[in-house]
């Protein structure tokens, strides 16, 4: 017999609670080395401490700024390049191989290079987030426009619409739909870029805090930061989901 789907969240919560309880008990029983695997309550305490002391705010601000600016710029650049490449074959010839190459490598390996070029400030983190997001969005838009529904194009043309009408009524809404489809991945990429950039070289940010925790062997702090990043990204996912539902309310 299959359990009703509507209780899935309850079962998931229960499973999580059991895992945490076993973890906690194992820690208390001395089965886990606190240096490597601190108990959930210790991680929670570290997280509370970050906020209680207020020390986390500048770090969150730095990471947020880098990720969100990188996300916005990356989406904008990806759309512009994707649209131009799709409409102008000559541009596609030049851009597509570069993008394919960038797509094939793990782009975070560019992080050290960006630190050398742009310094340990915000710029190098934004750049990393931008390149992670822009390549993803470029391919979404580029392949999307080339697969745009021909029937819709013909419909607009036979109703008397010109090029401007095609862009406004067919291409832009299609692009919006595809970008929305990649939004969650893009958000994840933007935070990856920001955090990895900070990890490689920074004086602020959650990634920097993570590398600090690593250098001081503070596992509880590390896991607390990981937890914090998860919560933050989930919150942004929820916002993105609402935006998606609004923009794609027709689907």
């Amino acid at each position, binding site marked *: 017999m299959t359990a009703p789907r509507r209780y899935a969240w309850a079962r998931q919560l229960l499973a999580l609670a059991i895992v945490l309880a076993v973890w906690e008990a194992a820690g208390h029983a001395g089965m886990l080395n606190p240096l490597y695997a601190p108990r959930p309550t210790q991680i929670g305490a570290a997280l509370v401490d970050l906020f209680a002391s207020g020390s986390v705010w500048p770090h969150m601000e730095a990471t947020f700024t880098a990720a969100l600016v990188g996300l916005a710029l990356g989406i904008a650049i990806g759309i512009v390049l994707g649209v131009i490449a799709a409409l102008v074959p000559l541009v596609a010839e030049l851009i597509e191989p570069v993008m394919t190459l960038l797509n094939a490598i793990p782009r975070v390996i560019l992080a050290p290079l960006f630190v050398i070029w742009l310094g340990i400030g915000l710029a190098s983190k934004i750049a990393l987030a931008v390149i992670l997001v822009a390549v993803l969005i470029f391919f979404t838009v580029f392949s999307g426009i080339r697969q745009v529904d021909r*029937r819709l194009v013909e419909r607009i043309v036979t109703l008397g619409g010109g090029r401007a009408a095609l862009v406004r009524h067919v291409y832009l809404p299609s692009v919006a739909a595809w970008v929305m489809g990649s939004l969650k991945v893009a958000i994840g990429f933007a935070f990856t870029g920001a955090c990895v950039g900070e990890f490689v070289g920074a004086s602020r940010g959650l990634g920097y805090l993570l590398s600090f925790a690593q250098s001081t062997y503070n596992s509880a702090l590390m896991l607390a930061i990981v937890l914090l990043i998860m919560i933050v990204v989930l919150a942004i996912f929820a916002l993105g989901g609402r935006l998606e539902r609004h923009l794609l309310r*027709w*689907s």
Partner: protein
Amino acid sequence: MRVRDVTISYGGEPVLEGASLAVGEGRFVSLVGPSGSGKSSLLRAVIGLQAPLAGAIEMELARDEVGILFQDDALLPWRTARDNVALGLTFRGMERAKALDEAEAWLGRLGLAGFGDRFPRRLSGGQRKRVALAQVLALKPRLILMDEPFASLDAIVRARIIQDVVGLVERERISVLLVTHDLEEALCLSDIVYLLSQGPRARITQRYEVPIPRPRELIGARVHPAFAPLYEKLWRDLSLEVEGAARAPAPNDAEAA
């Protein structure tokens, strides 16, 4: 509207060769033929979506007096039914508010009053077809090209829409060129039926006048004494075309395959 010796090719062997036909004012003309005989291609050539390899399309009407109803109802999924209908009107410079009013009126005329706010996804196949029809009719065309527009509908919805279309084109004296592979549909609706042979290199082989009086009513047309003999003749001719092509393939077929 007159099609003279039109040949259409998508590179390679022509799908359609030397086709000529005429659609007089206020006449309902059908083009029937087997699949792959280039019926749709001919319509696309008339509306200018496909350039013919040879021949000419002569039109006494302005380009914007010709509308086309496609087989699929390619409505913009991100626009409501009303917006979809208003689209062509705004392309012609009509003010948006006025275009929306006009669109609503057309939706009402086609039995879709109150559905204007729905997105296409929330409409049934028949309703979407009616929206597509409103989209074309709102532009007050003098000639409508129809590319098997009713093929995807179930029988009852289909009969009702066809009856509505017949009423509208008879009342407004709109000329129609309908492409279909449904002989019954062609005979019930048309004044003239052209028969295309099996493609590639399909040709128009026959022309039939349908002497059933107007205004027409679908069931009435079907039981009219002229219907059965014509239907039989058309069916026989079409079967001959299809069988002939199957029995004696053109020498080029082997290479093409």
